[in-house]
Structure formats: C-alpha cells, structure tokens
C-alpha cells in the first residue's frame, strides 16, 4: 500500500461560508492537512476564504487564498505539480471543481492522480439515473418516480406509484410551483402549476414519503474494502425537512437492532458497490409506525425503507458525527486516500487500538440548527427541502431530555428556553406544528395544552411519538416545579433533565442565582464525562467532556496554570467562523505561553471543538451557568480557578464578561469596565470628549419624543439602532420624521428596554482598524478601507488593505486616535474601531470621526492577520498574560504596510432564503467572506469579486434601476458600461436618464402588473445577466419595487449590486478580469 502514497497533494477548500456549506469544511480541511503532515505528504491548499484555520500559513505546506475557479486551480497545479488531488474534503464546491478539472483534461495534462473515492463512484452517487441503476443492481429499494411533461402523464404516473405523491418541477428554485397531492384532483392542480413553473415544462412525480423517518449513516471504506459505520443519526423532523434543517439525534432512538442493522448493512453494501475510499454519508427513509402514518405493506416483514441520497464525501453530517462520537472522520478519510487501510491507522482516542472499529456512544447527542430568522423577520420560516440554517449547535448528555434542553440553551436565543411560547399561540384554536424553525416550541405548547401525543404526531406529519413522550416528560417536570415546593430530590431530577437554573427559577419563582446557591447547599453539581468513542470500554485519553448530573466526575482538574477560552457558539449572521478562528488561535497562544488551554463551545462544525485543538474541551452551552460550573470544576485543582478569556468568541463571549465579574471570577484581557465604556452610550460620549476625539453627534434615547428631538437637533439622515446587539440587527438609516416613528418602534422591540441610539449619519469613507494593546503600547497591524460608504454594515462591506484613498496624514490621525482610545479604555488585547473619514478641502485637517469601538477581536482578525503577517491573536493573548509587545518582538504604532493589496468581499446566501430582501444596509446579511490578494489593487479587487461570484460577466446585458439619490454617482458608471460593450436595460426613471445621455437603452417596467416583459421577466428569462439596483429608504416605493428585482436576481444567482460603490468597484475590475497573479500567501507576504 505504501507505493500508493503520493508525495504531494492538492486540497481544494469549500470557499466562503454559505447556507449549506459552513465551518464544517474548515474543520475537515484542517484535519486533512494535519493527516498529510503525519503521513509525510506535502500539502497544497487552495481556498478563497481567509477566515479559516486551514488557510493559516502553517497548516498546509503551501497555502493559496485564491478564487476557486478552474483557471486558477490549473495555474496552481502548473506551479506546484501535485501528485494527487484530494477532492472529497472541500464540500460540494471542492468536489465539483475536482470533477471539472478532470473533465477539462487538466488532471491528465499534469499527471495528477485523483485520490480516495474514484470519480466514477462520485458520478454514480450523484447522477440520478446511474444511482437508481446501482440500487437496482444491489436489490435495494428505489423510490418510485417518473418524469412527466403533461398533466395526463402525471395522473398516469400517480396511479402507478400510488397516492400521495410529490410533484417536483424541474429547474425551479426551492421547488417553486410543486407540492404534494393526496387526491387526484389535487394532483391535477399541482401538476398544472408545477408544469407552468418549470422553464422546460417538466416535473418529477415521486412517491411521497412524508411522515417517514429520516435516518442517516456515516460510513467509511478503505481501498482494501474494509467498511465501518461511524455513527447513525435520526432526524426528529421526519422526511420533507432538509437534514441540515432538522433536529438530529445520535444515535438513532426509535430503531430496534433489526432496523439498525438492516440499514447499516444496506449502507455498507452501497459504499462497497460504489467503491468509496474514504467517508460517505447514506440517507435512508424508514417506514414509521402505521398508526402515525399508514403505508402499504406487511407490518410483520422487515420495515420497508428507501435509499434517499448518498454523499460520496465528507459532509456536514460527517462533522457532526465526528463530534458526536469523537471519531476523526476527515483525518481518517484523508489517510485512506493516501492508501492506508483502516487497520493501519492508529486510533487517536485510545492511542492503542486502530481506526478499524465502530464508536459506541454512552450518551445522547442532540443537534439543533441555528436559523437566521431573528435577523430576517420577513423571511419565509417554513422548512422544506431547501436548507435555511446558517449553523448549528450540539449538546451531549445522558438522556434525550437533558441533551435537548442543553442544545436549546446553546442556541443563544436570549432567554428562549423550552418554556418560550409565541404570544399568538395563546389565542390560537390549534397550535401550528408544521415544519418551521419554531416547531419544537410549538410541539411543547401543544402538549402543555393537553394535546394527545398520537394526534400530535400525526398532525406534525410524523414526529415520532417517542420524541413527543420525551417532551411530555419535560412538561411533567415543569408542572412539578410549578406545584411542588423545591426540595433536593426534585431539583436534582430537574437538573438531570437538563433544566437550567434559569428555567427552574422561572418555574419555582426564584432567581437563577438563588437556584445556584440552593444547588451548592444541597450538593447538586454537575460532573463531567468523557467522549471516548468506546463507552468506557478502553482507557481513553480524549480530553473531551460534557456535563451531566451523575455520580462520577471524570474531568479531574490537572496541574499547572490554565485559562478558559470562551468560544463563539453557532455560526449565525453577524457571528461567523472568524470568531472560531480567533478562539482556536487563543488556545494555541495559551499553549505556546506554557499554559493549559481549556476550550468551551457548543458548535460541532468548528476547529475549536476538535478535541486536539486545546488541552481540554468542554462541549457545553455558552451561558453563565455552564461557564461558572466549568470554572468551579477546574477550580477544584491545585492551581485554583483559571481565568477566562472572553475577547475572542464574538458577542457571545463578551456578553459573559459582566456575569463573570459579578460572580467574582477572574477575566484576563480587557475588563468588564472597558466593555462597558464601549457599550454605554453616555459613558462613551464623555470618554471621547475627554480624549478630544470627535464622533457623529447623537444620543441614547428611550422614548419617541426624545428621538424626535434628537433627530431634529442633529439633522437627518440619522442612524437608528438598539444598543447591545450584534450584527447591526434592527439598524436603519432614517431620512425623515415619518420613518423615524416606524423605526424607533422596531428598534425598541429588539432593544427590550435598553436604550436606542440615534446618531447623525455621516456619508464618508468608512475605515476600520484592529489594534493590540499591552497596557502601555498599541500596535495597529493595519488599516482597512471599506469600498462602500458608511451606511453599509461593516460585515457586508468590501474592504481593502491597505487603504487606497487615505493619505498619510489621515492614517496618522487614525492611528493616534486608536492609541488614545485603546489606552484610555484600559483595553488589553484586541480592540476593533470603526471610523468615518469625510472628504476635506486642500489644507484642511483630516476629518475623522469614531463610529464604534469594540474591545474584543473582530471579524477582520483572520483577514488582517493573514495579509499583514502579524500573529494578532497570539500577540493579544501574550499581552493578556502580561508580556509586553516589545518582549514579543513587535513595535507599536502602525505596522509597515505590505507591498500587496487584499480585498475582502462578503458572500450572501440569498438564493436560499425566500422572502428576504438582499439590499445592503446597516443590518448585516452576509454569511461569509472571500479574499482577493495580489500585487495591485485592481487585480485583488477582480479576484475578490470572482471569488464572491460578483464579477460582472464581460459584454453582458445589465439591468439598471437607480434611485434618485445615487443617479449622479451612477452617471460615469453608465458611460463606462456602455463603452465596455454592455447592453443596457433600465426601469422607467433610470431609462429616461440614460436616454438623455444619448445612450441606447431598453425600458423595462418595474410595475409587475404593467405588462410584459417586466423587470422580473428579464431577469428570470436570462435577458440580463447582472443588475444594479440602488434602493431609496425602506419606506418608499422604490424599496418595494426593488424587492422583486433583487429577489429575482438572487434566485437566478446573478450579480446584483445594491450599493453604487460596490458597482463602481465591479466596473473598475472589468479593466483587468484575468490579469492577475496566482501565488501563495507566503509569496505575497515576501516571507520566504
């Protein structure tokens, strides 16, 4: 087997975080690179996402942060000449690119061998027809379906298959126009609408498995044909909800050994037949109880099942399975690709046995998706076949009830425990339990009202009664806590079911702190059990723990100084993978400084929850109770209670600063007071005044009257936002008093009693810095300039390093302000500051205003670390531990600018979220980011746009719908487009302007009822390939008209620019679309 081992391997990453492809592939790719290093194989990594651990300089041997396109990859291959390509660890993106490289003959041309699962197997797993053939050959059941082109064909198909059926129109997004049919009349209606919706008048009529169980198996196979199962998982949400949007439990709970082994054997037969070499995910649909959802067939025969899907690669489910079991799937898959067999790969957990075994769990794992509907209130909350979640949480405990309660806590929906109910349900005759992000709570509410379990199981279309019985157990405990006086046995039982102190307090009418005190008095404390892959059968060394209320504690504190890194929880809009990056580096920095790094996090997709990232991992909710319990457990050791670091885990971690301080627990880095200065509007104002640093005028208000008065004083436009929220939630630029009334209302709801901030909106260049302070000196690694003017959330802005429009004088002012602010606040470690720089006349002093200060690591830390070469987190942790910057070998002031340009561009997942408006504004909407890096600005910009799928196609047709406010700015752009050979389409007003310029233009009406073709038609039928649509304020008609334009563009997945500044950049980048370098980050930095 040794001869199969390549000397060098190309690994393709998965690119930016989007819905359906998140941090799990950073975890997988990082593990793969580590595996290559262990095997002595040189690794070459390409990924466009700078916020990843895998793109760190020292994870792979050569790191390219370049757009993930075939031409770029060919250039990398030509430079590096890798012997092998590992296609199955970069999600669907990586896999698709590998297939394209092969098809284009590039692999053959350069003699690159595809490693692991062969392309033929991938094709047979992904091609619908080949897949059915393969199943038929194995005698596996195939889901009956037929392709139809007329209503009559649909009826015939349904008669053959048997009702109910699902009608799926071909080539529509999210199944638009399709649906379920339970009767032939319904079928005719659904078939007609489905055929009409399909651009090729084709629908698939498929047997309806609604109500059937959805079960997944994570399996592995090596080149010698050895097969194992890592774990199986059962979806609490039955068939019909995307598994990424389902609540998932591992292992399966309602399968007997016969069921379990039947599906396991089927999974192994399938991967053997496909010839998988590596990891693979097989999804099954299994017949439910007949009293829940009837099906045809003998109830005494083995339960019928169907094979739904096979993912011939490491997937989101593999990451979950890895964390649920402790089995390092990606690492083992990478080694299998290098020719190793399972019995040759050492088991990283026991260190004695091999990778050829199946994990045994002695706990229950619950995963709950994290959806973005808290940010997109108008988004369609219904869950279906299109995944909508941005991230997920996982919790582990010894019972389902406890794991579920902990998972809900991990969602960080401030105070929304399982006790939460939607106010509308109070009056509802029947609580809606169809699949939405709130179904879990709806099921609880229905059970609280005494609804029958079987009835509820049917009404929810198949949530198995087993799960509902568990919810009923939780409700029984709620009642006891409401009715009985609190006594030790009752409190202990509640804790064993995962009730938080807060929930117990709410029900038993006490404060959480009182419950905590009672627990201590009664000796009710959690213990920590190890995730060891083997249910304690072997002595394991995994430092991976979860809390539970049992007898024996296994997480005995160890000797030596330690610190706790509070992680960032689930990936959500506004708090992405960047914060996991920072948390991981914080753990490593602690280790470099000779401390033991203890990590706490709740997100199974991340590198931080890999058990070998830190010295000890607690997989726990990130709330006060869990963190204090961990600290108390660690405090039993000889070194006492370790200090916590809350600076790297985003708003989640920083929110724990106050509670920790109140509990008298030590924090290192900026203390809670620095955080309070930054967040308390009045203190912040006074603080800046004392330092003589200007900020846009404004005030914190609590009433509408105050708001009106403030706005009048400072003048419109004003920026309205609640204090203490992340990602600019409920933030808005308001143009007049009418709008103000509406938005103060909206913001007040989100602010929940806390003040609302109203500031003068200054339209200038937005600039952002991250600074590191050791208490005496301040290092500014770099200044980033936003491409979009202030008003677009910094997380949604394109940004460039180094700035292109600032002069030395302005930079000096920014660095000086930064120094004063950071030292003045007493911030230790990292601080992020956002400024707005207004244009100035010659001779005038720089006009720099402070917008915002965050005494914590920001989402730009990975980007800036990578493009400056400054190990920002490491320096920050060093400073927090008392080491001066100078002692760490770094000066103060602005770090010398590198001779490179790097542009960060946001990436959105708008095609996945129906009903959500895509325009850029003060509220953050992007899910991920990419980076373009090159020797000059235009090339870096072009690469960033290509990587973000926002590059303008050359000489295309473009639809323009420009607001009055931006028409002046748009004029030169329109000229440039026309000169570049673009055909212009425009809405009425914009068209008149273009015609007035004497340029040819086709008018398209934006009135959807005003005849065809309208704006939506020209986008949907492909007449135009890109859109510039700048909206007016939210309250005007243009926003509503524009909504349809923007949604259509999102669904067709074509570039749509809603900020004139982004559009300008894209047009600027047209100048040199392919004239860019391809080089490693190290080469750009000139580090070698």
């Amino acid at each position, binding site marked *: 087997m040794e001869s199969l081992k390549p000397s060098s391997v190309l690994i393709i990453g998965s690119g930016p975080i989007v819905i359906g492809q998140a941090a799990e592939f950073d975890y997988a790719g990082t593990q793969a690179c580590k595996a290559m290093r262990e095997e002595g194989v040189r690794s070459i990594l390409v990924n466009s996402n700078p916020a990843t651990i895998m793109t760190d300089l020292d994870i792979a041997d050569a790191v390219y942060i370049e757009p993930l396109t075939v031409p770029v990859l060919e250039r990398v291959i030509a430079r590096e000449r890798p012997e092998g390509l590992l296609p199955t660890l970069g999600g669907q993106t990586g896999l698709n690119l590998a297939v394209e490289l092969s098809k284009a003959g590039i692999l053959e041309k350069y003699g690159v061998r595809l490693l692991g699962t062969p392309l033929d197997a991938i094709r047979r797993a992904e091609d619908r027809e080949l897949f059915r053939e393969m199943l038929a050959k194995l005698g596996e059941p195939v889901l009956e379906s037929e392709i139809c082109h007329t209503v009559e064909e649909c009826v015939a198909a349904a008669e053959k298959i048997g009702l109910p059926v699902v009608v799926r129109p071909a080539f529509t997004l999210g199944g638009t126009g399709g649906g379920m049919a339970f009767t032939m009349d319904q079928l005719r209606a659904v078939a007609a609408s489905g055929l009409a919706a399909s651009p090729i008048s084709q629908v698939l009529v498929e047997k309806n498995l609604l109500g059937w169980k959805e079960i997944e198996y994570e399996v592995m196979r090596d080149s*010698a*044909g*050895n*097969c*194992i*199962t890592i774990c199986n998982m059962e979806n609490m949400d039955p068939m019909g909800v995307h598994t990424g949007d389902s609540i998932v439990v591992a*292992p*399966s*709970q*309602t*399968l*007997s*050994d*016969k*069921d*379990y*082994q039947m599906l*396991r*054997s089927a999974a*192994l037969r399938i991967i053997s037949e496909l010839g998988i070499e590596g990891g693979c995910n097989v999804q099954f649909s299994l*017949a*439910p*109880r*007949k009293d829940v959802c009837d099906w045809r067939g003998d*109830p005494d025969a083995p*339960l019928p099942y169907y094979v739904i899907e096979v993912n011939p690669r490491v997937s989101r489910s593999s990451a979950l399975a890895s964390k649920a079991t402790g089995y390092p799937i990606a690492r083992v898959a990478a080694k299998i690709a290098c020719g190793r*067999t*399972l*019995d040759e790969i050492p088991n990283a957990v026991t260190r*004695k*046995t*091999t990778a*050829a*075994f*199946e*994990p*045994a*769990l*002695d*706990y*229950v794992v619950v995963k709950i998706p994290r959806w973005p509907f808290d940010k997109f209130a108008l988004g369609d909350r219904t869950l279906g076949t299109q995944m909508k979640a941005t991230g997920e949480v996982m919790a582990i405990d*010894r*019972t*389902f009830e406890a794991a579920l309660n902990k998972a809900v806590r991990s969602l960080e929906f401030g105070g929304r425990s399982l006790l939460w109910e939607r106010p509308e349900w109070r009056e509802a005759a029947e609580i809606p339990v169809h699949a939405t992000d709130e179904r879990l709570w709806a099921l609880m509410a229905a059970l609280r009202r005494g609804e029958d379990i079987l009835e509820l199981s049917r009404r929810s279309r198949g949530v*198995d*009664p*087993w799960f509902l*019985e568990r919810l*009923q157990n939780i409700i029984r405990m709620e009642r006891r806590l409401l009715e009985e006086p609190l006594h030790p046995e009752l409190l202990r039982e509640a804790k064993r079911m995962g009730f938080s102190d807060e929930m117990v307090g709410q029900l038993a009418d006490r404060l959480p702190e009182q419950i905590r005190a009672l627990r201590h008095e009664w000796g009710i404390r959690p213990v920590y*059990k190890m995730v060891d892959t*083997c*249910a*304690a*059968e*072997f*002595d394991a060394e995994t430092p991976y723990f979860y809390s539970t209320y*049992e*007898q*024996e504690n*296994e997480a005995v504190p160890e000797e030596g100084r330690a610190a706790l890194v509070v992680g960032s929880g689930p990936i959500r809009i506004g708090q992405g993978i960047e914060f996991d990056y920072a948390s991981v580096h914080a753990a490593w920095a602690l280790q470099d400084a000779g401390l033991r790094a203890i990590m706490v996090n709740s997100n199974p997709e991340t590198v931080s929850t890999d058990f070998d990232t830190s010295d000890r991992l607690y997989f726990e909710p990130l709330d006060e109770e869990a963190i204090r319990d961990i600290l108390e457990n660690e405090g039993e050791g000889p070194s006492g209670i370790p200090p916590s670091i809350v600076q790297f885990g985003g708003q989640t971690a920083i929110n724990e600063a106050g509670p920790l301080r109140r509990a008298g627990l030590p924090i290192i880095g900026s203390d809670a007071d620095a955080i309070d200065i930054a967040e308390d509007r009045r203190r912040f104002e006074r603080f800046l005044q004392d330092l003589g640093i200007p900020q846009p005028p404004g005030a914190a208000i609590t009433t509408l009257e105050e708001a009106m008065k403030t706005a009048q004083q400072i003048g419109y436009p004003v920026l309205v936002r609640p204090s203490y929220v992340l990602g600019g939630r409920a933030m808005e630029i308001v143009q007049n008093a009418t709008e103000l009334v509406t938005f103060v209302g909206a913001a007040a709801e989100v602010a929940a009693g806390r003040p609302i901030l109203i500031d003068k909106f200054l339209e200038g260049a937005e600039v952002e810095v991250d600074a590191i302070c050791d208490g005496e000196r301040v290092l500014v690694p770099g200044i980033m300039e936003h491409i979009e003017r202030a008003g677009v959330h910094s997380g949604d802005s394109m940004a460039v390093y180094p700035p292109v429009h600032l002069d030395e004088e302005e930079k000096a002012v920014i660095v000086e302000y930064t120094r004063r602010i950071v030292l003045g606040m007493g911030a230790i470690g990292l601080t992020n500051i956002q400024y707005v720089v207004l244009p100035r006349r010659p001779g005038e002093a720089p006009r720099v205003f402070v917008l915002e200060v965050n005494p914590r690591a920001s989402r730009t830390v990975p980007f800036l670390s990578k493009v400056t070469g400054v190990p920002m987190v490491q320096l920050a942790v060093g400073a927090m531990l008392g080491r001066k910057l100078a002692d760490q070998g770094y000066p103060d002031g602005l770090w010398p600018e590198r001779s490179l340009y790097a542009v960060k561009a946001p990436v959105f997942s708008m095609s996945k979220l129906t009903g959500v408006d895509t325009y850029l504004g003060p509220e953050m909407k992007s899910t991920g980011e990419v980076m373009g890096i090159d020797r000059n600005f235009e090339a870096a910009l072009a690469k960033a746009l290509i990587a973000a799928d926002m590059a303008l196609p050359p000489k295309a047709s473009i639809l323009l719908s420009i607001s009055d406010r931006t028409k002046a700015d748009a004029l030169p752009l329109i000229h440039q487009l026309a000169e570049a050979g673009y055909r212009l389409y425009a809405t009425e007003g914009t068209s008149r302007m273009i015609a007035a310029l004497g340029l040819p233009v086709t008018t398209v009406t934006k009135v959807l009822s005003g005849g065809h073709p309208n704006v939506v038609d020209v986008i949907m039928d492909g007449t135009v390939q890109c859109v510039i649509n700048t909206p007016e304020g939210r309250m005007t008609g243009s926003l509503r008209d524009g909504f349809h334009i923007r949604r259509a563009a999102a669904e067709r997945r074509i570039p749509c620019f809603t900020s004139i500044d982004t559009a300008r950049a894209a047009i600027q980048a047209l100048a040199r679309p392919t004239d860019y370098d391809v080089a490693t980050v190290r080469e750009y930095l000139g580090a070698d």
Partner: protein
Amino acid sequence: MSDAWLVLADGSAYRGRAAGALGRADGEVVFNTSMTGYQEMLTDPSYAGQLLVLTYPLIGNYGVDERVEESARIQPSGLIVRQATDQPSHLRSHQTLREYLEARGVVAIDGVDTRAVTRRIRHHGVMLGTITTNESPEQALARVRDLPGYDEVNWVASVTTQRVYDWSIPLGEGRYRIALLDGGVKRNIMRLLERRGCAVRVFPAGTPARDILALHPDGVCLSPGPGDPRLLDHMVREVRQLIGRVPVFGICLGHQVAARALGAGTFKLPFGHRGGNHPVKDLVSGRVTITAQNHGYAVDPDGLEAGAFVSHVNLNDGTVEGIASRTDPLMTIQYHSEACPGPLDNEYIFDRFIEMMAAVKGGVR
C-alpha cells in the same frame, strides 16, 4: 417507584430505582456497549449468572417484541441501566421493558451512573454484585461477600437443553444435517443454518460423541454459552472425538471448547468483550469486519496442536478470535457471526461452514 441499590463486591454502591420485578438478583457484573438489541441480549443464554450493565443510557426505547427473542427466557439474573424508557415507540412493540421484566420476575435497576459502574469494572475487572430493592447497601454487601464465585459454577448445565429436539426443517429434508451441541444456543444460529437449507438437531451439552456421530451429521455446530470453559472437561473430551471425523464449527464457547480439545488453553479476560463494535481481522483474507462479541474468557493458543492455527484476531487487544485447521475440517470463531444483536457482517462464516461441509460431502478431503 421503589428505590433500589446496586452493590458491588468491592463495596461500591449505586442508588437507583427498581425498573423490573422487586427483590434481589445476584451475579457477576458485566457490561455490554451495544447501542441497540437489549432484548436480544436479555435472552442470550451466555449471560446466565450475570448482572448485565448496558452502557447505552436509554434502554427500552422501542419496546418489546417477543419475536426477536434469542431463547425462551430472560437469561441474566438482573439488568442495570441509566434510564428505562416507559413510553416506547415502535411498530412491533406490544409491551414496555418494565412490563416484560416484571412479568418474568427479573429484577432491574435504572437511574444508575452506568458509566461509573463500567469504569469501575474496566479498572478492577468483573466482580460479583447484587441488585436489591429491599435491603440496605450494607446488608446487600454482606450477602455479596458470601456468594459463590462465578467461575466456580458450571453455567452451561443450567442453560443447555434437557432433551434432544429438531429446529424447523425435519432431519430428512435438509440439504445438510447438523448436530448442534447446545451450551446455551441463540436461536439465530439455527435460523441462519435453516436459511441455508440445514436441518438442525439440538443436543444437550453433555451428549457423548458417539451419540452425535450415530446421527451421521454433515457437520457439528458447537454453540456459544456461559461460564468458564475450564469447567467443561467432559465436553472437551467428547469434542476431541468429533474433530477429524465430521466438519466442526464452533462459536464462542464452542470455539473455546474446540480450542481446548486441540490442546490450547483458556483464560479469563479482565472485563470481557461484550458489544457490537469489535474489529476482527481474518488472517486468511486480510479483511477486517466488525463483530458482535459476548465472552469473558479467551483462548490462549499456546499448545495448539500442529495443523491447527489462529485464523482470526481481535484488532483491539490481539486476542484469538478464530481457529482453523490445515488437516481437519474445522473452523471456530470467538465472536458471534449470528449477530442478534450486532452487525450482520459475518454471516459469511456460515457460508464457509456450508462450503466446508459441501467439500467433505463431495469427497474433496
């Protein structure tokens, strides 16, 4: 629900609640790490004389279905779990686990920190213990200290069939005629043989070789079973008479007995192998499969007579998982190719047994 205690011979005590019949149950405390298959385990005769700890915490989720039983009664003397589910959900379930245990008078305890118990056994080895619903832990401990050692009891005698019987296919109608020596057989062994066209006649464990040979079987199957194989000298002697004369297939205890007959020894494992996830390498094919295991003793291959060799090994601890012979039609496996519970990866062993019989029958010796 009544309080209950699990008390181990080393004095450790775990509080829980009664999850089955009330009373007391004594035995050697062993753990199994399978996540499914509690009913198959409960009816596996190899658990005779033992208290079974299931490491998976939720037991009873899919209820009880008599059709999956591996023998006619619940075999371990008691059951220890973290949470017994009283509201099962499965198409086939017609009873809860608690009802099943109560109806059969089997004592069980739930609410126990089963991981702590498991870790104790792993560190200190298997030991005697008791589940009790009507004593103090101190009283129970005093009683446990007086219990006879598990290894001193011939458990096979208590589980083997008392009379000869035929399984399903009448003797004259099978493609192969199998004599099965019942040391504590699981029904699925017979089901799998039946599915391959075998007529199976089941004999008590103490049956002399000549009685078996008088049947003119195409093959002999030595079944699994409980207890220390060193107590089975008589059986070992009789099996020695069978080897070489008729194809022999031994499973678990049957493997240990055959190994002893071939000159090997056996020894007690510190805490046994019980679960559905043990990797076994077939040294002939090089393939690794995942196996179901349930044994507290293992074969020491020292002394194996010439011609016999180790054919399978456990990848976790290198112990012997199978023996074959170059000279005689013989194959044995330590693990449970019949699964139930456990992975179905090893049914091929039954096919090999059929091939072995076919070869002998066809005169290819």
